[in-house]
C-alpha cells in the first residue's frame, strides 16, 4: 500500500505537489526539483504532457521520483494513448511499485504547441479510472487474467470552477463510483465556486467517499497570472486578481499573498483532505506557504498527526 493511500485512509492531512516538468538533466534534475519541496510534501505528481506540451513521460518521471525515495502520483491522460497503451503504462507503473494514479481526460491538443497532433480520447477520464480498477481486479479489459493482480490507489481531477457547476459534484460522485478514492481539484480562483462545490460534496456525502484535495498555484509574475487567466482551459481568474498582480510593486510577493489567501480559504471548507500545490517559484515556495499556513512538515505530521476532517 502506498504511503499516500495509508495516510488518506487513516484521515491524515496530506500535501501533494506537482513536480515541474522534466525535459533534460536526468535523475539529477528530478532530485534538484524535489529537494526544496520534500520536507512538506507527501506525494509528487508526475504530469502527463500538461497543456498538451510534450515532456518526459509520467511513467519515467514517476520511476525517478521513487528512486529519489519519494512517493509518486502518476498522472495519465486519455489524449495521447488508446486503451492498449493505457493498460501497458498502468501495468508498467505497477511493475515499478507505482500505485497512486491520477486519471484525467486531458487538455485538448489545441491547447498545446503541436495542435496538428491527432487526438486519441479512446477512453474518457472516468472510463480510465474504471479500466485501472479492472486491472486491479486481476483482469485486462478483455478479461484475460493478470496474476498476481496489481494494486492501485486511484485518483482523478475535478474542476469546481467550470460549468455546469451543479453537475460537478455529481461527476465527482461518478468518479468515486468508477473507483477513484481521491480527487485533486483543479485550480479555482473563484472562491464562491469552490465553496459551492465543497458544500454540496459535504451535504451529499461525496467528500466521505472520495478525498477532496483543492489545488493552489504559487505564481511569481504578471506573465504567469495572465497565462493562467487566458491560456489554461477551464480556469477562470477574476480580473481583479490579475489587476492586483499588475499593480503590485513586487509581483512575486503579491502572487504569494494571493496563494496564501486562496489556500486559507480552501482549508476552511468542509471535507478538505489535503492541499495540492503547483509552484512556479525558483525557491522553496511550497515550504514557505505551508509554514505560513501552519501546516507542519511531513515528518512532524507523520509522528504527531494533523487531521483532516473526513475519512475515506
Amino acid at each position, binding site marked *: 500500500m502506498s504511503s499516500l493511500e495509508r495516510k488518506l485512509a487513516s484521515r491524515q492531512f496530506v500535501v501533494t505537489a506537482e513536480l515541474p516538468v522534466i525535459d533534460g538533466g536526468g535523475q539529477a534534475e528530478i532530485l534538484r526539483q524535489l529537494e526544496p519541496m520534500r520536507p512538506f510534501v507527501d506525494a509528487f505528481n508526475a504530469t502527463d504532457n500538461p497543456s498538451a506540451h510534450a515532456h518526459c513521460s509520467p511513467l519515467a518521471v514517476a520511476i525517478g521520483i521513487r528512486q529519489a525515495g519519494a512517493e509518486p502520483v502518476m498522472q495519465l491522460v*486519455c*489524449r495521447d494513448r488508446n*486503451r492498449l497503451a493505457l493498460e501497458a503504462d498502468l501495468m508498467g507503473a505497477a511493475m515499478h511499485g507505482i500505485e497512486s494514479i491520477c486519471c*484525467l*481526460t486531458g*487538455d*485538448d491538443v*489545441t*491547447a498545446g504547441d503541436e495542435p496538428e497532433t491527432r*487526438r486519441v*480520447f*479512446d*477512453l*474518457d*477520464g*472516468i*472510463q480510465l479510472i*474504471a*479500466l485501472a*480498477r*479492472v486491472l486491479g*481486479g486481476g*483482469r*485486462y*479489459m*478483455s*478479461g*484475460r487474467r493478470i496474476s498476481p493482480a496489481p494494486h492501485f490507489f486511484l485518483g482523478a*481531477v*475535478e*474542476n469546481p470552477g*467550470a*460549468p*455546469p457547476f451543479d*453537475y460537478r459534484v*455529481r*461527476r465527482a*460522485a*461518478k468518479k468515486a*463510483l*468508477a*473507483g477513484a478514492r481521491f480527487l485533486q481539484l*483543479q485550480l479555482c480562483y473563484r472562491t464562491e465556486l469552490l465553496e459551492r462545490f465543497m458544500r454540496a460534496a459535504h451535504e451529499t456525502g461525496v467528500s466521505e467517499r472520495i478525498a477532496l484535495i483543492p489545488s493552489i498555484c504559487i505564481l511569481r509574475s504578471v506573465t504567469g497570472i495572465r497565462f493562467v487567466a487566458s491560456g489554461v*482551459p*477551464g480556469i*477562470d481568474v477574476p480580473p481583479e486578481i490579475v489587476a492586483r498582480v499588475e499593480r503590485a510593486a513586487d509581483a512575486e510577493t503579491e502572487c504569494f499573498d494571493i496563494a496564501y489567501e486562496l489556500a486559507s480559504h480552501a482549508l476552511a471548507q468542509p471535507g478538505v483532505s489535503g492541499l495540492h500545490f503547483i509552484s512556479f517559484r525558483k525557491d522553496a515556495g511550497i515550504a514557505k506557504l505551508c509554514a505560513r499556513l501552519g501546516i507542519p512538515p511531513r515528518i512532524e505530521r507523520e509522528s504527531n498527526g494533523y487531521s483532516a476532517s473526513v475519512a475515506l
Partner: protein
Amino acid sequence: MSAAARLLAHAEHAVKQPIWGCQMCGQCVLHSTGMTCPMTCPKTLRNGPCGGVRADGHCEVKPEMACVWMKAYERSERLPLWRGHIDDLRPPVDNTLKGTSSWLNLISGRDRAVPAGWGHARPGRGAGADVEP
C-alpha cells in the same frame, strides 16, 4: 454487413444526422444524455463534461460552440424519463460497431455487450449494466 443492415444504417443516419448530428457510433446513448449526442463532443466523451468548459459554457476545443455536455446536462434535467441516467457509468465505445445501425444493435443486444473485464468496473445502468464478470 448484409445489404439489409447497410440499408438500415443509411436510414438511421438519414434520420439522426440532421437532428442530432449522429456520428454512427452504433451504440446510441441519446436517451441517457438528454437527447444530445456525446459523439459530437470533440473529445467524444461519454461520461460528462471535461474540465475545460469555458466560463461562458462553450467548448474548450471549439470556442464558438456551446459545450455538448452543458446541453446534455440541461436537457437531461428537463426530460420526463431517463433523467438520472446521465449519472450512469457508460463503458468505452466499441469501435467495431462504427458505421453500423444502433437500431439493429439494440434489437440484437449487441450494443450492450462489453469486454469481459469491464464487469469488474461495476457499471451502472445503461449499456453493459447487465454484464457481470
